[in-house]
């Protein structure tokens, strides 16, 4: 196992692409803001199907000494690491809607709202990243970005009658509007840094932007006229389009800044076959985006909830979901722990990149609150209490294993979301089923 891990890590290190000199890319400070301090950023990373708690949970609360096997890849950043126990996701429970814990766990993770089996339709709630993006997202070119290793599922109902959208989307702009994620590192890069176009001169670029602007003007008017012919519910559907137009206009207007010229040497080739490589490339582009201040908010799904991906590259040929129902078979439990550890390794790569990148003499990591977790606790039992949650970075006082539910039965995950949203500069009072803020930060 040790050999395998070392090999995986080394392969990751070898595949690292050349990071450009990010600091030189940061755009000049806008009056009064950046001169004072680095911007605050917020990143959510999701791993599906819960964990094997035995290999995940540190032996004692308090100071983090030796890390349990699953968390070992984070050892170099132990001083930055906060292992959080005792958080619960109540809205991922059935609450009268029957089975479907995977779909609910994913859809509720950032929304903390109850997803409903609305017979082919979807209805949950706004996610915390989108709430923050509404408040502070206009300071960057992209209010937020969404990335992940697996596309929206393309077959059938994904979990016990829940629409597939629930299992594959963490970010929700509205109750029925999931935001799809980008799975191709190259396309993500192009969208962030190249405006999708290859060789074009400044002049051509300016022309193209002006043309897009006037096309958007026209279609905004098309939408307004169309809305007058539609029923109420269809008008609501069209609002998604109108919102998208407004957001594109905002970006084209150049009101937002940041993220201009990231060199092509950092442009990834596409989707690699190896899952670890795929996750690392996405993390690399995410770090570029944060460093260039193209966005400050991101969600990153290492896989869709309920994913049955076969991790044979790390010696676990069974599907992830299949093996997560291990029925206490020791060999399967060990396989689950290996997959958990693999996901933590992918996460550790992101942390490493954030720590290696400098911003104004400090680590980029110190400006980013990174939350890692799953909406399911124990994958075998589908529980939603004592979720596996890690916090790294953001200047948090790490090196600790805390119990968010000390003295109470359980603490809503939403309390942590509220706290993180406030740290990111969005004055959120309450969110979904929150009952307050968390004190342990």
């Amino acid at each position: 196992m040790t050999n395998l891990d070392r090999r995986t890590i080394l392969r990751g290190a070898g595949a690292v692409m050349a990071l450009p000199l990010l600091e030189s890319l940061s755009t000049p400070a806008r009056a009064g803001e950046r001169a004072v301090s680095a911007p605050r950023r917020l990143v959510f990373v999701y791993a599906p199907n819960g964990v094997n708690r035995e290999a995940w949970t540190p032996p004692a609360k308090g100071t983090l000494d030796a890390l349990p096997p699953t968390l070992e890849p984070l050892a170099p950043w132990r001083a930055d690491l906060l292992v959080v126990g005792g958080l619960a996701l109540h809205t991922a429970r059935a609450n009268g809607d029957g089975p479907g814990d995977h779909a609910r766990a994913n859809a509720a993770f950032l929304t903390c709202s109850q997803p409903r089996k609305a017979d082919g339709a979807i209805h949950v709630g706004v996610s915390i990243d989108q709430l923050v993006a509404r408040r502070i997202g206009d300071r960057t070119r992209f209010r937020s970005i969404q990335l992940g290793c697996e596309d929206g599922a393309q077959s059938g109902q994904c979990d016990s009658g829940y629409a597939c959208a629930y299992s594959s989307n963490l970010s929700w702009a509205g109750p029925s509007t999931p935001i799809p994620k980008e799975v191709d590192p190259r396309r993500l890069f192009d969208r962030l840094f190249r405006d999708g176009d290859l060789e074009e001169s400044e002049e051509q670029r300016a022309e193209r932007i002006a043309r897009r602007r006037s096309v958007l003007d026209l279609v905004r008017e098309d939408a307004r006229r169309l809305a007058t012919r539609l029923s109420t519910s269809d008008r609501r559907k069209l609002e998604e389009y109108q919102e998208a137009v407004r957001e594109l206009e905002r970006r084209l207007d150049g009101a937002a800044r940041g993220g201009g010229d990231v060199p092509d040497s950092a442009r990834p080739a596409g989707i690699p076959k190896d899952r670890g490589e795929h996750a690392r490339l996405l993390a690399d582009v995410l770090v570029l985006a944060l460093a260039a201040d193209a966005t400050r908010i991101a969600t990153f799904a290492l896989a869709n909830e309920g994913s049955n991906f076969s991790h044979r590259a790390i010696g676990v040929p069974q599907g992830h979901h299949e093996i997560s129902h291990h029925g206490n078979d020791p060999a399967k439990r060990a396989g689950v722990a290996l997959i958990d550890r693999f996901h933590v390794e992918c996460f550790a790569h992101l942390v490493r990149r954030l720590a290696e990148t400098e911003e104004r003499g400090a680590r980029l990591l110190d400006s980013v609150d990174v939350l890692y977790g799953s909406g399911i606790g124990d994958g075998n039992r589908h529980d939603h209490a004592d979720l596996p949650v890690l916090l790294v970075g953001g200047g948090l006082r790490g090196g600790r294993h805390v119990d968010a539910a000390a003295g109470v039965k359980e603490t809503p995950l939403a309390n942590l979301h509220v706290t993180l949203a406030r740290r990111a500069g969005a004055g959120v009072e309450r969110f979904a089923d929150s009952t307050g803020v968390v004190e342990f930060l």
Partner: protein
Amino acid sequence: MLPALVALLLPVPAGWQGEDPFETRVLPVLEARCFGCHDGDDAESGFDLAALSGDLAVEAGAWRAVRKRVARGEMPPRNKAPLAPDDRAALVAWIDAVLPPEPAPDDEAAGPLLRRLNRREYAHTIRDLFGVAIEAHELPADEVGHGFDTLGAVLSTSELLLEAHLRLAERVAERAVLLPDPPEPPRRRVDGAKLGAGKASGARGRFRALHSNGEVTLSHELPREGEYAVRVRVHGDQAGPEPCRLALLAEKREVARSEVPERAPEGRVVEAYLRLPAGKARFAVAFLNDYWAPNDPDPAQRDRNLVVEWLEIEGPLDAPSPSRYQREELDPRTRGTLRHVVERLLRRAWRRPVDAEEVARVVALASAEQGFERSVRVAIVAALASPEFLYRPEVPLRDPRGTERLGPHAVAARLSYFLWSSTPDRELSELADHDDLRLRGQVRRMVADARSQALSEGFAVQWLQLGRLEQATPDPTRFPEFDEALRASLRAEATLLFDSVLRERRPARTLLDPGYTFLDERLARHYGLAGVEGPALRRVPLDPGARGGVLGLGAVLTATSYPTRTSPSARGKFVLEALLGAPPPPPPPGVGVLAEASDGAHARPLRERLEAHRNDPACAACHAAIDPIGFGLENFDATGRWRTRDGRHAIDARGALTDGRAFAGPAELKALLAADPAFVRTLFEQLAIYALGRGLTPDDQAWIKPAIAAAGRDPTLIGLIEELVESEAFRAP
């Protein structure tokens, strides 16, 4: 909670006056046969039947579950005696009488919401409008509802999506309309230092020096098939008896070879012109004659290196051929004014007549550009980015009797997106203009058209849940022969089967046992069939028996398996869901999954291990209905190969349907399904969901039943489609 309380709270259905049927008929059955397990805090599966409060508004779902389980014979479980038939009938009749009708989901879910084109439809539409090919995966993946990608309720629009659409529209416009003064061909020059290289090279300023025989490489995305020039400028560190030599390679093929006698600052350009296909191409410069004499007394004669200054790719150099749109619509002799061109464009793209003001607004935008072609390009972008194109607005018209119906253009679009996943063609549009659609005849014409392949690719693939085939990852140690080529053949076999039954007007039940299939050599070998040679799929007659039909498709059998083994449960569930329209309820939380011996040499056959699983009462009720169907397909392994043994256990392919009808092996299972009216009904309902873009409610049975009946005793697939299209629902908003 006491059963008596239930009795008190539950209303007495109308028509049962005189006695309380619950007291006299239902409660005794519940007491005798149900409360034994379903009572109290330790009730079976957490389902405490005795504790139901009687608030039907809240508990309708629970009673419906009772009705379903009892009616299907799943409760009491198999290890208990079944209910007496008249007890069962009484219980079901009572629940039917007291329950309110199943509520329609809330408004938003019920009606067909404004439907956005999904990415399949977008790609087909662009092809048909302009003769320009794009790949669906250039757009973000669409969400799926009820198993299909045509559901208005889940096709949402985000900034990411609209941005992708805008960019794609620009590219479509560029390909659809060539400029009269073509710009210089694109040229990409990359400095040597930035080229890909192995260990035996190093950057030398902007250049790259190769210290020993080896390559520097450049990957470049070629936008289309065409002529390209590849050029490299080089010089050498000269030493030894001969000058540097290099080879220029494209896709590992040598395309030029040259000596390089120059020394810095002189250099030489080596170039080659070649024809290359679209897509990613790899170019390389190879240093062929390294020379290293460290002991040579003259330091300048010790080391020969090749220095690559830059590598460039130019092209495509040949003129692209104009699109069908440009040939047909923009011929300077016939095209008319910009306003005419825009009017025709909007009419086609927006699938309806357009008014003068709509045309004028686009013309105003387009005429700001210099030159006719550039103007048309902008008009195309504006037409394609508009919600009038990206959505299919179905604005109902009120007819004289006050009922709402769709207008002919909306119906024409429904029909063409159903059968072609694309926009109406000229004929259909003109018939809509005259409000003279004659749908049945159009179905025949459109199914005969090659575009109807979209129905196999769109409907059949999703109906058969073959998205799971794309995601399937059979374990390479157990199934080493499974690869991407085989996956593609499996998929093609499935779509060709559907296509043949559709176009050859075969009965729908032939989908289960057609007596033929489509094979290439590879797939025939996989199935263990001889006499098929070469890579082309062709129709191969089959003896009656196991292979053939949807349940003999390797695609379906692989999609319903785990990476390491078959799943009789997944196969049983597939049959119940996709073929019989009776989806089993999902597993309760907290249940285990089957234990599997890790070495592959199982102590007990899979059937026995599954049966052990069913001893767990939490699993038993459903799996007793699901697994026996899947057992009938155990002769097919996890990639669809025929087998008579699983490891060291002989296959036992006896099984039974939910209602107890027994069978042995796939051939008998297929015969039972083909004779079951539930198969045709399910197929029809699936077609309806796909075509209407919404889920079905119990009310829909009012038109579904007569429509199926109208298709005849042994309806053909195309006959079912004709009746669906002729139905009221197809014209209703």
